[in-house]
C-alpha cells in the first residue's frame, strides 16, 4: 500500500468511526452497530470510499479480537476460569455439536452432499466473540450469569476452531487431501506435535509466572511510558505468533497469557496500554465487516440470502434456547442468551475461506454464507435492543402481575420514584421502620437485582401519570422523587403538584443549577445529591488536618447553612439577564464565609461559636 494511500484510507476509516459511533450511541444503538453501519456506508456498495484493501484491513483488524481476549484474560483469574469449567465444557460442547448437527441435517435435506452439509454446519456453529463481548462489556453484563454463560460458549468455540480447521480438509469433495497448512510442526507425527504443543504451553505458563514480572519490573524502571506500551504489545503479538506457529488459535493463546498475568501487579498498566489498541482495531474490524458485505450477492439472490439469514438466526437461537433450558436458566435469561449468540462470527469468515481453499465448499455457496454471516452480525445489536426494550419489560410486568396484589400496592403512604443508589437508601430506611412504600424504577436489570433482596419494585416510568395513579398517588402522603434526571424530575414534580397540590414532594436534584430550577418553581424540599456526602468528607478532611472533631463538624454545618441560604437567596438572580448581579452576589457571599472562618473576626457578626470564646467572655469575667 502506498504511503499516501495509507493515510487517505486511515482518514476515511477514522472519520467514519468518529461520525457514526457517537451518533449510534446517542440513538441508543451502541457502538458496534455504529461501526458496522459506518463500514457499509464507506464500503464499495454505498460511497465506495475504501478500495480493494478492505479485505486485508479486515484480516489485520482481526487482531483486535486477539487483543480483546488478552484483556478478558487479564480480568479472569485462573480460579474463576476453573469455576466456569462446567459451563465452558457443558454449554460449549452442546452448542457446537447440536448446532452442527442441526445445520448439517438441514443443508443435507436441502440437497447438498453430506460432507458439504457437515462443513457448513461446523462453520455456522461459530458466533462472534468480538460483537458479543463488546456489547456485553458496554452494558456491564459480563459478570451476570448470562454474561458468564455466553463467554463460556465463546471460549469453547475459540478452542474448537483448531479441530474444525483440521477436519475440514478431510471433508473435501476433491479426491486429493491437502495437508493442514500454516503450522511449523505439521511435519512431525501426532505424538511429537502433542508434545511440542504441551511443551510450549508449559513454557508460556512458566515464563508467565516467573519471567514476565522481573522483565516488566526492569522495563518499568526505565520510566519510559512508551517502552512499557511497546513491551505490552510485544507480549500480545509474540504470544499470538507462537500460538499460530504451533497451529493453535492466537486468540486462545493470548487469552491464556492474559489469565496468567491477571494476578500480577502490572495488570492495570497492561490493561491501560492495550485497551486503546484493542478498541481501535476492534472498531476497524467492525467497519471492515460492514464494508465487506457484498451487496451484489445479496441483490442477485435476495430471497435465497434472506432465507439463509433467517435459517442461521432461527436455528442458532432455537438450539441455544434449548441448551439454556437444559442448564435451568429462566425463560428471560434463556432468551437473552439465545438472541445474543445467534449470529455467525469472525471465525466463520476464516473457516469459510479455509474450506474453499481446501475444496470442501464451492466458492459461490461460501460467498453467500459470508454475506449471511455478516448481516447476522449486524442484526445482533438490533436483537439486543429488541430484548432490552420489549422482552425484558414484558417479563418484568408479567412477574409483577404474578407477584403483587395490585390493591395492596395502591394504598401505601409513600411513593418512591427512582430506586437506584439514591432511592434505595431512603427505601431501606422506610422499610426498616415498617413504612410501606410503592417503588417505581425504569431500569429492568436494576429491578431484578433489587427484587432479589426482597423489595417490591414496579417497572415503570414515573413521568407517565397513569402509572403514578396506578401506583396509588391519590392515597399517598409523601412523594419521594429520587430519579437521577433532574430535568425530568422537575416535569414530574410540576405535573404531580398540578393534580395533587396537597401531596408533599421531596426531590433529589443534581446540583446547584438544578436546585435553582426547582426553587424557581417553588419547590423547597430539594436535596442536592452529592452535597451531604461532600460535606461529610469535608468534616473528615478537617479532622485529618488537626481540627477537633466537633469544631470540624460545626465549621461544616455553618458552611452548609450558609450555602443553603445562599442558594435560596440567589436562585432569583440566576439566569442570563442578571449575570453581573448574580456574580457580585456570589462573590459577596464567599467573602462573608471567609470572614466567618478567619480568626481575627472573633466577635464579628459572622462567627458561629462566640459563646465559647474566652476573649469574648472577658467582659463578664471582669465584672464578677
Amino acid at each position, binding site marked *: 500500500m502506498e504511503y499516501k494511500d495509507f493515510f487517505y484510507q486511515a482518514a476515511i476509516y477514522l472519520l467514519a468511526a468518529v461520525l457514526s459511533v457517537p451518533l449510534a450511541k446517542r440513538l441508543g444503538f451502541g457502538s458496534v452497530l455504529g461501526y458496522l453501519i459506518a463500514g457499509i456506508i464507506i464500503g464499495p456498495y454505498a460511497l465506495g470510499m475504501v478500495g480493494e484493501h478492505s479485505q486485508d484491513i479486515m484480516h489485520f483488524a482481526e487482531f483486535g479480537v486477539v487483543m480483546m481476549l488478552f484483556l478478558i484474560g487479564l480480568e479472569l483469574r485462573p480460579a474463576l476460569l476453573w469455576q466456569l469449567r462446567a459451563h465452558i465444557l457443558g454449554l460449549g460442547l452442546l452448542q457446537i455439536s447440536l448446532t452442527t448437527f442441526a445445520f448439517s441435517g438441514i443443508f443435507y435435506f436441502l440437497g447438498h452432499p453430506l460432507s458439504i452439509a457437515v462443513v457448513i454446519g461446523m462453520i455456522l456453529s461459530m458466533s462472534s466473540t468480538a460483537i458479543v463481548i463488546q456489547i456485553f462489556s458496554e452494558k456491564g453484563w459480563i459478570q451476570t450469569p448470562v454474561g458468564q454463560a455466553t463467554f463460556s460458549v465463546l471460549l469453547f468455540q475459540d478452542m474448537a476452531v483448531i479441530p474444525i480447521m483440521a477436519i475440514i480438509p478431510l471433508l473435501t469433495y476433491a479426491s486429493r487431501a491437502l495437508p493442514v497448512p500454516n503450522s511449523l510442526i505439521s511435519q512431525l507425527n501426532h505424538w511429537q506435535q502433542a508434545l511440542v504443543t504441551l511443551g510450549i504451553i508449559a513454557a508460556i505458563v512458566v515464563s508467565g509466572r516467573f519471567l514476565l514480572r522481573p522483565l516488566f519490573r526492569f522495563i518499568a524502571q526505565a520510566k519510559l511510558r512508551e517502552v512499557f506500551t511497546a513491551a505490552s504489545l510485544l507480549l500480545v503479538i509474540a504470544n499470538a505468533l507462537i500460538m499460530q506457529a504451533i497451529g493453535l488459535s492466537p486468540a486462545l493463546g493470548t487469552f491464556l497469557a492474559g489469565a496468567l498475568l491477571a494476578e500480577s501487579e502490572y495488570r492495570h498498566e497492561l490493561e491501560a496500554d492495550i485497551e486503546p489498541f484493542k478498541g481501535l482495531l476492534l472498531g476497524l474490524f467492525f467497519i471492515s465487516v460492514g464494508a465487506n458485505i457484498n451487496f451484489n450477492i445479496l441483490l442477485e439472490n435476495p430471497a435465497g440470502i434472506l432465507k439463509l439469514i433467517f435459517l442461521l438466526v432461527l436455528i442458532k437461537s432455537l438450539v441455544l434456547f434449548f441448551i439454556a433450558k437444559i442448564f435451568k436458566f429462566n425463560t428471560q435469561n434463556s432468551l437473552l442468551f439465545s438472541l445474543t449468540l445467534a449470529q455467525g462470527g469472525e471465525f466463520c469468515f476464516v473457516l469459510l475461506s479455509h474450506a474453499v481453499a481446501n475444496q470442501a465448499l464451492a466458492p459461490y455457496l461460501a460467498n453467500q454464507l459470508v454475506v449471511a454471516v455478516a448481516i447476522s452480525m449486524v442484526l445482533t445489536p438490533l436483537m439486543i435492543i429488541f430484548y432490552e426494550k420489549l422482552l425484558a419489560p414484558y417479563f418484568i410486568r408479567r412477574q409483577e402481575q404474578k407477584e403483587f396484589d395490585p390493591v395492596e400496592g395502591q394504598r401505601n403512604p409513600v411513593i418512591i420514584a427512582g430506586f437506584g443508589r439514591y432511592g434505595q437508601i431512603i427505601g431501606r430506611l422506610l422499610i426498616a421502620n415498617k413504612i410501606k412504600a410503592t417503588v417505581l424504577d425504569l431500569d429492568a436489570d436494576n429491578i431484578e437485582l433489587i427484587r432479589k433482596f426482597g423489595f417490591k419494585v414496579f417497572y415503570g416510568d414515573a413521568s407517565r401519570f397513569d402509572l403514578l395513579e396506578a401506583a396509588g398517588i391519590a392515597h399517598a402522603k409523601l412523594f419521594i422523587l429520587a430519579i437521577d434526571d433532574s430535568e425530568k424530575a422537575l416535569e414530574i414534580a410540576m405535573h404531580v403538584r398540578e393534580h395533587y397540590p396537597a401531596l408533599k414532594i421531596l426531590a433529589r436534584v443534581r446540583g446547584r443549577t438544578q436546585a435553582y430550577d426547582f426553587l424557581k418553581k417553588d419547590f423547597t424540599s430539594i436535596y442536592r445529591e452529592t452535597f451531604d456526602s461532600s460535606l461529610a468528607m469535608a468534616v473528615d478532611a478537617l479532622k485529618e488536618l488537626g481540627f*477537633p472533631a*466537633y469544631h*470540624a463538624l460545626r465549621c461544616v454545618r455553618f458552611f452548609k447553612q450558609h450555602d443553603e441560604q445562599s442558594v435560596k437567596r440567589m436562585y432569583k438572580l440566576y439566569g442570563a439577564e442578571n449575570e453581573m448581579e448574580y456574580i457580585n452576589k456570589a462573590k459577596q457571599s464567599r467573602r462573608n464565609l471567609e470572614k466567618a472562618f478567619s480568626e481575627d473576626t472573633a466577635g464579628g457578626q459572622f462567627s458561629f461559636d462566640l459563646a465559647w470564646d474566652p476573649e469574648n467572655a472577658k467582659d463578664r469575667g471582669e465584672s*464578677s
Partner: protein
Amino acid sequence: MTVEASHQKILILFAHPAIHKSRVNRELIKPLQNIEGITFHDLYETYPNFYIDIKKEQKLLMQHDVIVMMHPFYWYSLPSILKEWLDLVLEHGFAYGNDGSVLNTKKLISVITTAGSHHSYQSTGSNRYTILQLLAPLMQTAFLCQLEYLPPFVIHDTLHLTSEDIAKHTQDLEKILLALRDDNIDFAKVKSSSYLNTDLSAILKLSS
C-alpha cells in the same frame, strides 16, 4: 496480689466544645492522655454528632472505679454533650432502679473550670450560690446511682490565670488523679474539704 490489681481505674469524661479556643483545659488535659490506669475519653471528639454509643459507654463505666467529669462550668452546669451522656447512658435498670446497682462501689468527681472567682460563687457574690450548691442536681444523680460524690476540683478565674498558675493547676490535677489511682488519698480528710484542690498536702498520703 500485684500492685497493678490494687490500683483504682480512672475514667475521665472530658467535655469541651471548643478546645481550640480553650486556655486552661487545653493545658490541663495534656499530661492526662497516656497514663496507665487512667482512660482519657474526649466526648466531643468521639461523638461530634452527639450520637452516643450507649453500650460502649456503659461498658466503660463498668471497667472503671473512679469517674471524673471534666469540663468548663457552662451556665452553672455541664456542657450539653455531658447532659446528653447522662440522659442516655445512665439507664434505668443499669445505673438506678431495682436492678440497677452496678455503680454502687464507684466514685464520681467533677473537675470544673470557671471564669468566675471563688468570691463570686458565694451568697454575697454575683453568682449568689456556691459551686457545691449549684452542683446539687449532679450530686443527687450520683446519690440515686449509688455513686460516691467527692468534692469537686475547681479552678476559678480562668480568664486571669498566668501560664504559671495554669501549670500549677495542671500539676495538682495530675497529682490528685495519680493518688486516686494508687489509693494514696486520705478520704476522711477529702470529705471535710470543700474543694478537692483546696489543700493538697492535707489529703495526699505520703507514697510508701
